[in-house]
C-alpha cells in the first residue's frame, strides 16, 4: 500500500515530508506529493475491535496521518491505494476540490463523501477541519479514477514525465539529405517533463476525451499506433498503474558515535576500549557509505559538566578503526582531559574515499594512515610542535624557519621541477679577480651551518682588522682565519635585528659563525659551519 499526502499549500511540502518520516522511513518527495510506503504498517494502525486486515490498517494509517497533519496545522489530502499513481491522482483531485474554497464547507465535504462512496471507496470517518483522507480498494483503481478529468494526469507529471521523455527519445530522428544540423538550447528537465505531458494531454483532449475513463476505454493497439509508447503510458496511468516503483529518499548518513558511561572514567587505558568500540562502529558506517574521515572531532563530557573537545585534522580520508583509535589516544595522551569522563562523542567530517593512481616509475610512499600514525606517535614523544616538515620562512632573519604538517602526498613532484637551491648551486661562483668574488655571488651557496638554538653568548676579543679570539661554551680559541663583517638587518617595524656576522676558523679547527648585535655590542655564536 502506498499513501500519498498532498499539501494544499506548496510551501508545506517539507513539513509534510517530516510528518511522513514519523510514520515510515520509506518516503519519496516530489511535485506529486509525498509518497509513503505503508506496507507492513497495518499491524500498527489496524482497528482494535475488528480484524486487523490490510484495509483496516490502511484506514487507520490514513486517519492518523490526517489527524497528525491537523495537529500540526497542515492542510493536506491523504489517499491510500495499492499503487502510487492511483493514490496521487485521487489525493490531487481531492486537494484541488478542497482548494476551491479556503475552508471546505460541509456541503463540499458531503459531496466529496458521496462521490467517494459512489466509488466504493472507504470514505473518511471524521474529517478534520483542514484534512481529509480516502482509501481506494485494491483492484478498483481504474473504476475509481474513471470519473477524474483528463487534466488530472498533469498533476503526476513528475511520475510520468521521465517515461514519456524516454518514450519520445526512443524514436530516432532522421535527418533529411541536404539539411544541416540545428542546435538549440535544451529546456530544463522539469520544464521538458511538464511540457511533454501537457502536449500529450492536449492531443488527447483534441480527440474529445474528457475523463480518465475515456482514455482507459480506448483500444491499446490503436492508441499505440497513433501516439506510440507515450499513449500506452498515459493509458496505464489512467487505470492507476505505476510506471516506476517508489524510490525512497536516502537519509543523510550520520557518522556520529557516542557512548554514555555508567561510571566516570578517569584513566586513558579504559577509555581506549570505549574509543575502539566507537571507532569500529564508525568504520562500518564509513565503509557502508564509501566515505573516509578527513576530520575527527571528539567531545568528552566531563564530570565537571564541561565539554572537552579535540579536533584532529586527518591528512587524507581514512576509516581504519585501529588507525583512528590510535590517533585519538595519542592525542589524548598529549592533551589529557582535566577531569573524569561521563560521555564520549566522536563525530567526523567525511569525504569520498581516496583513489590513488600510482605511477610505474614513482617510488611508493607510505600510506597516509601509516604516516598519520607515525607523526602522532612522534608528537607524543617529542611534542606536536617539534615534528613536521621544515619550511623556509618569509624573512631574511638568520636561522628563521617554519614547521609544517608532514604531508608528502601533497608535495609537488620534485623531479618535474628543479629545486631553486639546486639551480643556484649549479651556477658557478664568478671570480672577478684573484682576491674576491663578484658581489653577492657567495650568497648563492649558503654555508652549511649547525645552528645553536638559542645562540650561545660569547666573548670576542677584537682588533682593528676584526675579531681575534672567541670564548664561548665549548667553542673557544684564537681565530686563524676570518671573513666579514656581513651586515644584516631587518624587521625594524617589530623590534628587528641589526648585526654584523663573521665566519671564523679557530686554531682548534672549528669554523663557526659569530655575530655582534650592533645595538648592544653583545656577541653570540650562531653555530658551527660544517
Amino acid at each position, binding site marked *: 500500500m502506498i499513501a500519498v499526502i498532498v499539501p494544499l499549500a506548496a510551501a508545506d511540502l517539507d513539513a509534510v515530508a517530516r510528518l511522513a518520516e514519523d510514520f515510515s522511513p520509506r518516503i519519496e518527495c516530489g511535485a506529486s506529493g509525498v509518497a509513503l510506503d505503508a506496507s507492513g504498517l497495518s499491524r500498527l494502525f489496524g482497528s482494535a475491535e475488528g480484524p486487523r486486515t490490510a484495509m483496516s490498517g490502511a484506514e487507520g494509517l490514513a486517519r492518523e496521518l490526517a489527524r497528525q497533519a491537523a495537529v500540526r496545522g497542515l492542510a493536506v489530502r491523504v489517499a491510500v491505494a495499492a499503487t502510487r499513481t492511483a493514490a496521487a491522482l485521487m489525493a490531487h483531485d481531492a486537494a484541488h476540490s478542497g482548494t476551491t474554497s479556503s475552508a471546505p464547507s460541509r456541503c463540499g465535504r458531503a459531496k466529496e463523501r458521496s462521490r467517494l462512496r459512489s466509488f466504493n471507496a472507504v470514505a473518511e470517518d471524521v474529517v478534520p477541519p483542514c484534512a481529509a483522507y480516502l482509501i481506494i480498494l485494491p483492484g478498483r483503481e481504474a473504476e475509481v479514477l474513471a470519473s477524474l478529468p483528463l487534466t488530472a494526469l498533469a498533476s503526476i507529471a513528475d511520475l510520468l514525465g521521465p517515461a514519456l521523455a524516454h518514450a519520445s527519445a526512443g524514436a530516432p530522428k532522421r535527418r533529411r539529405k541536404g539539411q544541416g544540423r540545428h542546435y538549440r538550447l535544451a529546456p530544463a528537465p522539469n520544464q521538458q517533463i511538464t511540457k511533454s505531458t501537457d502536449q500529450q494531454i492536449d492531443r488527447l483532449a483534441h480527440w474529445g476525451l474528457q475523463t480518465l475513463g475515456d482514455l482507459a476505454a480506448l483500444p491499446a493497439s490503436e492508441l499505440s499506433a497513433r501516439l506510440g509508447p507515450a499513449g500506452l503510458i498515459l493509458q496505464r496511468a489512467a487505470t492507476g498503474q505505476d510506471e516506476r516503483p517508489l524510490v525512497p529518499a536516502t537519509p543523510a548518513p550520520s557518522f556520529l558515535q557516542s557512548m554514555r558511561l555508567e561510571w566516570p572514567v578517569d584513566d586513558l587505558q579504559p577509555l581506549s576500549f570505549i574509543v575502539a568500540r566507537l571507532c569500529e562502529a564508525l568504520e562500518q558506517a564509513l565503509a557502508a557509505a564509501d566515505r573516509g574521515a578527513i576530520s575527527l572531532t571528539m567531545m568528552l563530557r566531563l564530570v565537571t559538566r564541561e565539554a572537552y573537545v579535540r579536533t584532529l585534522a586527518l591528512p587524507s580520508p581514512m576509516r581504519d578503526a585501529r588507525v583512528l583509535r590510535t590517533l585519538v589516544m595519542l592525542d589524548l595522551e598529549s592533551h589529557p582531559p582535566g577531569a573524569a569522563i561521563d560521555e564520549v562523542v566522536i563525530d567526523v567530517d567525511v569525504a569520498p574515499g581516496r583513489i590513488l593512481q600510482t605511477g610505474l616509475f614513482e*617510488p*611508493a610512499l*607510505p600510506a597516509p594512515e*601509516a604516516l598519520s600514525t*607515525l*607523526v602522532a606517535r*612522534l608528537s607524543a*614523544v*617529542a*611534542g606536536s610542535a*617539534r*615534528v*613536521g*616538515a*621544515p*619550511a*623556509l620562512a618569509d624573512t631574511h632573519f638568520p636561522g628563521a*624557519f617554519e*614547521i*609544517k604538517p608532514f604531508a*608528502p602526498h601533497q*608535495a*609537488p613532484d*620534485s*623531479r618535474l621541477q628543479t*629545486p*631553486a*637551491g*639546486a639551480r643556484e*648551486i649549479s651556477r658557478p661562483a664568478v*671570480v672577478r679577480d684573484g*682576491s*674576491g*668574488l663578484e658581489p653577492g655571488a*657567495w650568497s648563492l*651557496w*649558503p*654555508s*652549511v*651551518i*649547525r*645552528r645553536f*638554538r*638559542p645562540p650561545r653568548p660569547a666573548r670576542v676579543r677584537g682588533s682593528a*682588522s*676584526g675579531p681575534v679570539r672567541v670564548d664561548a*661554551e665549548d667553542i673557544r680559541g684564537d681565530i686563524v*682565519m*676570518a*671573513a*666579514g663583517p656581513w651586515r644584516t638587518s631587518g624587521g625594524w617595524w617589530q623590534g628587528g635585528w641589526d648585526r654584523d656576522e663573521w665566519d671564523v*676558523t679557530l686554531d682548534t*679547527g*672549528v*669554523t*663557526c659563525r659569530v655575530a655582534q648585535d650592533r645595538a648592544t655590542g653583545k656577541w653570540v655564536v650562531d*653555530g*658551527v*659551519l*660544517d
Partner: protein
Amino acid sequence: MLARATLESLLKDHKLDRTLAVFPALRPTGPLEDQVIQTRHARADQCLEGGWPRGHLSELCGSPSAGRTTLLLGALAAATGGGELAALVDAADRFDPAPAAARGVVLERLLWVRGRVSDRRRLAHVRGDRSLTQAIRAFDLVLRAGGFALVVLDLSGVPPRVIKGLPFTTWLRLGRVVEGSRTSALVLVDSPAARSAGGVSLELTAAPARWRGQSPASRVFDGPSIAPRLRGFKRMSSASEQVRRGAGGAGDR
C-alpha cells in the same frame, strides 16, 4: 674438484650454466639507486662504493666542521630529490632548513623531529638523558614505520661517554629493524659508536677549512675540506661478494 670444473665447462659450452648457477641470481641486479643512497660527494661516494647502503645501519663520525652536515645534506637531497622520503631525528636541534633547501633537499619530503636538548653541558652530565632516549625512540619509531629511504639520527655534539652509556643492545636492535628493508639508517656521532654488521662507518678526518679570497672583507668560507675514511669492515663490492659466495658455495659442496 676436477670433476666439478669439467661439469661447469660442459654446462657453459651448452649454455646451461646460468640455469644451475643460482648465486648470480641472488646478487642485487637493480640500479645503483636501489642499493645505496648517494652522498653527492665524489670522494665519499667512492669510499662508500656508491653511497650509504640500504637495509643497514651506518654511521658518520667526525669532529665539528669536518663536513658531516654537508654529507648529510647531500644524502638527504639524493633521497628526497628522487621522490622518496627522508627523516631526520635531530637530537640537539641543530638543523637549518635554509642551506638544506639550497642544496636540493625537498623539504616537503623531509620529516624533521626536533630534539629538546641544545645544551651540551646538560647532556654531558646527565647519563641516560631523557632527551637522548626520546631521540632513539623516535628513530626506532620511524624505522619501524618503514617507507623512508633515509632515516638519520643526528647525535652530533652528544658526548661519546653518554652514547656508550646506552644499552649495548640498542644498536643491535635498530640494525635488526632496518635489516632487509629499503631504508638506509644513518647515525651522526662524534666518534665511532654504532653500526650494523652490513653497515659502514665513515670517518671524516680533520682538515683545514677552505677559504677563498685574501682580505677579510672579500674572503668567503668555501666549505669544509671533507676527507672521508672508511673504518673497520669494508663493504664488499658486488663482484667480490659474488666471488665470496661462489667460494663458500663450492666449499659447502
